[in-house]
């Protein structure tokens, strides 16, 4: 493009050329003139325009169209300009009607190509050490999750009972947490921060049932249980885990000791992600049983060594008054996926 002078043309009209990267298209844009709360319009040739996508401002009205139309809009500065039918006033007071855009599909002279910026891997990588600085808050080597110890889950405390829409972004919020996406321990502090707890009025918070202390972030409660080597259970509503395939939404619960997630139904990808991380993903055979679960309940899943495809699982709920109720639950694990559960994760099963 430099050869053709394209970029120079854009600079002549007052444009700024950015790095060969995603930049504003994924919100990596420090827009200098943006004012929080002010509604204004921008136009681009990008592919996404969700609120906040480009400049981080939820108010900004982002329109998408072709690059040639965007360029015409840049001259007009006005969303009501129609370059196909309308005209623009020039400095001499004349009317400019744009001719339809023309351009070659490919450069006639071919590309002046190179492999600039490419680094080939080592022939033999054995001696190479993967660089993770000690004490880094952005990267952390993963330790394999422990294998299933062969024991049934007995009287697990209830970590959270989510209510309504529980997307992966509610389970593992993005935003400032994305900085820590390479550091499982650190990012796990965001666990369930966006989720509605049916058993506590504040989003992302719940009750430590061992101490009775309420109003704590869910991750903090999970860390307390984990420190005492106590696993926990999560109960969820319909279509639990919809949204992006973000694996942190399954890895953080696993890392912080969640053993079983029992829901009215799962979003497919998240259900698989839970299985891959070695968490038992169950659904209520009767969705109404969801309503029976209370904060002080303890959850047992007996008979785990007899897990088999298409065979329902029995969940015993121990009530605070000493009574017990038995709930039928289903799983969708194949023979191979039961192997993942027993190995502790899909990756463990591989090595």
């Amino acid at each position, binding site marked *: 493009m430099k*050869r053709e002078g394209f970029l120079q043309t854009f600079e002549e009209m007052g444009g*700024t050329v*950015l790095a060969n*990267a995603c930049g504003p298209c994924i919100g990596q*844009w420090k827009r200098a003139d943006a004012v929080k709360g002010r509604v204004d319009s921008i136009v681009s040739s990008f592919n996404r325009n969700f609120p906040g996508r480009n400049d981080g401002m939820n108010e900004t009205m982002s329109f998408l169209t072709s690059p040639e139309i965007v360029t*015409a809009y840049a001259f007009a500065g006005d969303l009501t300009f129609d370059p196909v039918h309308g005209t623009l006033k020039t400095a001499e007071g004349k009317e*400019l009607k744009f001719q339809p855009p023309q351009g070659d*599909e490919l450069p006639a002279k071919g590309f002046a190509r190179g492999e600039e910026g490419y680094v080939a891997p080592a022939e033999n990588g054995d001696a190479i050490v993967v660089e993770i600085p000690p004490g880094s808050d952005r990267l952390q080597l993963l330790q394999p999750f422990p294998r299933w110890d062969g024991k049934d889950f007995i009287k697990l405390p209830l970590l959270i009972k989510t209510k309504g829409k529980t997307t992966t972004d509610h389970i593992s919020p993005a935003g400032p947490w994305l900085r820590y996406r390479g550091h499982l321990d650190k990012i796990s502090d965001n666990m369930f921060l966006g989720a509605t707890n049916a058993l506590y009025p504040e989003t992302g918070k719940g009750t430590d049932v061992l101490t009775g202390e309420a109003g704590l972030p869910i991750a903090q409660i999970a860390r307390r249980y984990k420190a005492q080597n106590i696993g926990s259970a999560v109960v969820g509503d319909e279509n639990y885990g919809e949204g992006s395939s973000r694996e942190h939404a399954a890895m953080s619960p696993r890392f912080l000791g969640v053993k079983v997630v029992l829901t009215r139904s799962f979003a497919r990808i998240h259900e698989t992600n839970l299985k891959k991380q070695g968490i038992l993903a169950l659904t209520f055979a009767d969705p109404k049983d969801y309503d029976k679960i209370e904060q002080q309940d303890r959850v047992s899943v007996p008979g785990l060594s007899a897990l088999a495809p298409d065979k329902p699982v029995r969940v015993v709920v121990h009530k605070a008054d000493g009574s017990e109720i038995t709930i039928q639950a289903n799983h969708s694990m194949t023979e191979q996926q039961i192997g993942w559960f027993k190995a502790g994760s899909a990756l463990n099963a591989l090595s």
Partner: protein
Amino acid sequence: MSMELATNLYKRMPEAVAKARKKFGRALTLTEKILVSHADTFDTQVWERGKAMLALRPDRVAMQDATAQMAMLQFMQAGKKQVAVPSTIHCDHLIRAQTGAEKDLLRAIDENQEVYNFLASSAQKYGIGFWKPGAGIIHQVVLENYAFPGGLIIGTDSHTPNGGGLGMLAVGVGGADAGEVMAGLPWEVLHPKLIGVRLTGKLNGWASSKDVILYLCGLLTVKGGTNKILEYFGPGAEAISATGKGTITNMGAELGATTSIFPFDRKMVAYLNVTDRADIAKLAEANRELLTADPDVLRSPEKHFDEIVEIDLSTLEPHVVGPHTPDLARPISKMASEAKEKGYPVELKAALIGSCTNSSYEDIGRAAHIARQGLKAGLKAKTPFLVTPGSEGSTTR
């Protein structure tokens, strides 16, 4: 870099395709030809659209720098010495636009040094190609270097389907999927349903490939493609450049589609030739039958697709979509009245071109043609105008 992969694939495809035609008792779409040729085990696989889980063996894995972190950490957990599948890492997501190319790049390298060092060193160790910050946007680099007709690639980014412009199935996945495939596991995905998009006519005037997908966004909505693959066909398909096809398949992600694909044609040959891959172009031409749908699919598409959409490119108007969602679409001729009616602020605070979906030579050339007309008339941009080129290769053309 993909000649060997293409050679091996085209060798094994005829058997898989013949087997599938027999098992299904009918002709095959292009999507099906690629799926059956990448099956982990064809015989035990259940082939039921919308129901069965497919276990597939992708040809390649591509990762961007944000999602690559967890993908690599998970891969390393498996304790393998080398990746099982050719893979690349592309540093494009962590660069924040602020003042311009050079300064933004230096700041990104400073802010993200430890992440880049980790990705570079792990790539070196495990046999992964590494594209440094500033080398380009993942989907452009993949299209220019790695994509080939008939291939199956997974990428840790939702706009991976950009590769469909070169006739391959390119699917966006999470980091865990990438980590597992690199470690040697098959990749699992719900057997998608198929939407056939029949294109007739030829784009003209202001209409561009972007308008094909913007129009479809309005028609099918952001949920219309969920668990579906869009397969384009018909005489109009061949009239669109390979990079234009890439724009369309890239934004298929906005429909929620698993991916989108165009059949192999002469426009792809031209693109492969100009990106120094005449060898792959020639090989693909010799295997054209494998890289396009069977004739019966074109004759009676209703027998082979779950849904069919028809678009006449000759009458397609330029479209504008938004705000806030890509399925709020209208032709540009209706924009002014709608803006007034709905009270959208009409003053534009910024205009931006480029990005992975629209930074091809053709896109930038057409935009520059408009820019030159304005400059000649003595006009300057009235609003901040930002340009994001797609790759280092495209800026040094």
